[in-house]
């Protein structure tokens, strides 16, 4: 273990110390000088390290926000699930961008799920923005004698091949013809235009039964999210479905075709307000979801609650660290002081690692970090207990430091490896809070092994070399001591 005291190792320790001070502190100095907020990402601020802004990434439970786990359902058969997942993520990203949330997280989970994390957004709003499957469904009407209810007894809607995916644009405007009604102008691509042209021609040319001049077959109807299931249960659901979409129904516009429409342009004239027209246009514009999205897990944390949790955990962390330092100094005297310095080094370096990776700190993550402090202390305790034993058996202080570190190492290595195994597996298998806990404990244990074996060891050696180390009170050992190395 003697090589640990060589100058390259000491240089490494000093280097890491400077790095962690820089990482922990530089961000704050830059922020203070530029009068910017001390936490979180600041848009427009130049990057501080490797192209990133350095700051503690707070989990949603610490800053408030919503975490949704969405299941993709009702995917048309034959579609490649990976592609569907990618497309869905694209669409969700477009929609979320319109919310202006900083650092939204949108991750694929498994094959058919997506996790979305939005800071400062309520769950209801997040769901409304993401989950609105604004699928424009176009139907024609076919005669069906079984249909008794609905707006047109004797006719049932039939979904046409014209889908939302053929939309190239949608925008809300005041109707150019009468100027006081909001409408949505939609444009189809060439495929859609061809289908729409064919549909409108068929509707225009349809002959009504019994020689009537108007009948449902002359109509093309636009719905929002109408499903095949709705049509199967048409008799029971028609009354609800034909309500305007902003009153809980799905009807957008039901238009009688008075001439074939060949240009691929269409106008939706619901009873829109300026807001509802614009929102619908945004939804249609940001693309259609290939399937439906179902919220299977959601977590919402209010903003002040998150801030409150941060205050509490910080207080717990600082208090915990202080108690441990006081206890160590009281119990081990000078070595305890050395360990406390090593512990502060450890805390600073771990924090710097968290900022650089970056690790998103959650409440459970903070618990993991605080526990890793406990493990860091344990490594020191192992060394010091061993140190006392060696000194009591009559070895010089200098040699005792070496032997203690050497003898404590297998125990520190094996016990921490067991923790690394457990936390590593937890990180791989766990979900949200468990993952957050595992990553901080894992990194904390790695850093703590370094800090106890190298930092504590070197500091102890320095103290022993340069000071009046035989003073038994300072060393916390009651037997008389000799000076120097054996």
């Amino acid at each position: 273990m003697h090589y640990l005291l060589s100058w390259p190792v000491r240089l490494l320790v000093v280097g890491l110390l400077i790095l962690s001070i820089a990482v922990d502190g530089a961000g704050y100095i830059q922020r203070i000088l530029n009068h910017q907020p001390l936490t979180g990402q600041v848009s427009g601020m130049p990057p501080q390290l490797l192209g990133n802004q350095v700051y503690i990434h707070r989990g949603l439970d610490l800053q408030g926000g919503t975490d949704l786990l969405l299941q993709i359902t009702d995917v048309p058969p034959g579609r490649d699930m990976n592609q569907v997942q990618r497309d869905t993520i694209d669409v969700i990203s477009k929609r979320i961008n319109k919310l202006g949330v900083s650092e939204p997280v949108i991750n694929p989970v498994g094959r058919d799920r997506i996790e979305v994390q939005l800071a400062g957004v309520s769950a209801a709003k997040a769901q409304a923005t993401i989950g609105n499957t604004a699928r424009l469904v176009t139907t024609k009407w076919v005669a069906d004698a079984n249909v008794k209810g609905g707006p047109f007894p004797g006719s049932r809607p039939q979904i046409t091949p014209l889908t939302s995916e053929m939309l190239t644009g949608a925008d809300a405007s005041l109707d150019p013809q009468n100027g006081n009604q909001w409408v949505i102008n939609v444009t189809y691509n060439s495929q859609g235009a061809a289908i729409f042209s064919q549909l409108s021609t068929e509707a225009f040319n349809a002959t009504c039964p019994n020689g009537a001049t108007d009948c449902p077959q002359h109509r093309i109807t636009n719905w929002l999210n109408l499903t095949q299931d709705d049509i199967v249960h048409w008799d029971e659901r028609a009354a609800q479905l034909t309500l305007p979409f902003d009153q809980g129904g799905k009807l957008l516009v039901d238009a009688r075709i008075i001439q074939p429409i060949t240009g691929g342009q269409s106008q939706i004239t619901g009873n829109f307000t300026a807001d509802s027209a614009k929102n619908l246009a945004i939804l249609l514009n940001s693309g259609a979801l290939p399937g439906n999205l179902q919220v299977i897990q959601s977590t919402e944390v209010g903003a002040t609650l998150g801030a409150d949790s941060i205050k509490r955990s910080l207080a717990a962390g600082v208090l915990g660290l202080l108690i441990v330092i006081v206890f160590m100094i009281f119990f081990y005297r000078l070595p305890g002081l050395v360990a406390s310095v090593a512990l502060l080094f450890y805390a600073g370096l771990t924090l710097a690692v968290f900022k650089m990776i970056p690790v998103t700190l959650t409440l459970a993550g903070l618990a993991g970090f605080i526990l890793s402090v406990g493990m860091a202390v344990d490594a020191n305790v192992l060394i010091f207990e061993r140190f006392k034993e060696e000194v009591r058996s009559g070895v010089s202080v200098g040699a005792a430091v070496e032997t203690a570190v050497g003898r404590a190492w297998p125990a520190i290595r094996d016990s921490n490896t067991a923790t690394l195994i457990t936390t590593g597996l937890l990180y791989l298998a766990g979900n949200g809070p468990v993952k957050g806990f595992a990553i901080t404990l894992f990194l904390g244990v790695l850093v703590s092994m370094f800090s106890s074996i190298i930092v504590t060891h070197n500091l102890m050696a320095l103290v022993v070399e340069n000071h009046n180390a035989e003073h038994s009170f300072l060393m916390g050992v009651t037997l008389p001591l000799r000076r120097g190395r054996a």
Partner: protein
Amino acid sequence: MAELSRPGAARRPLSGEEVTGEPVATPSRRLDIVGRRNVFFAISLLIIVPGIISMLTRGFLLGIDFQGGTELFLKFSQPANQAQVEAVVASENVNGTVQKGANGTYIVRTRALDPAQQKKIVDDLDSKVAPIDRSQIQANQVGPSVAREIVTSALLAVLAAAILILLYLAFRFRRVRGGWRAGFQFGGSALLALLHDVFLLTGIFSILGKVLNLRIGEIDSLFLTAALTVVGFSVHDTIVVFDRIRENLVLSDRLGASRLTFEQVVNLSILQTAARSIITSFTVLLVLAALLLFGGQTLQGFVLALLIGILSGTYSSIFNASQLLVVWRKVQPVR
């Protein structure tokens, strides 16, 4: 082990112990922790058996992440009457229960509701009972299928961790007299001590949640996190003792004819490491106390689980793990 071959090490084979040329008397007859192992096993069983009975007959009080459902933490900005809150929740037809917390907070638990449905309940409570501070809301919803997956993946993780730890310990202790077989005895005993802590912890929580009907005995992801920490900590503690046994076995073998019996080595090692075990656990308990003071209501169950687990882990590492190893060696002697 390079450090054992140092001259200093040979001069002082067993720190703190008198080693004479005479056949060694049982070290520290006063503190024969290994000899009284049956007493310590009995104490453990006394706590674990009722817990296991409770687990088998009553099961667990499951939190929403393991059962599926919705949990709303609400804070009214004006005093709210519990009966009124309950009436509004009942009118929503969501299988809701209401629990009153401190400082005007309420916890409403229902079947799994999506955010839009959750918002309706909050809006209704807001308009019919008292204004709700929306910045203090916490809402969790977990679908039943997700809950099953969380449990399955957690159990798999624990199982995999147990196997890996067993293999790792067998590997690390394979140089002990007896080779890999001895290695597996060390690893197996550490695992048994770990099972002791897990059963004790889950048993006590089963009793708290289902027999005493206390919410703090709820099994949720935070409890899972705590249990896994305990697993890590317990193995950590046990390994420190085992490591000392490994070291002392080597030193004792150098004494030739006067070497200590396995039992004596184990007892000595426990005594030598006990101070460290207790000091470390004590510092962790200090940190936990800080967490308990500041952590807030949601963390109380978590801190309690850690407290029980770490006490149990310390106990099992001193009073059970090595004793199990001694029993195992008697049943299946090496060399």
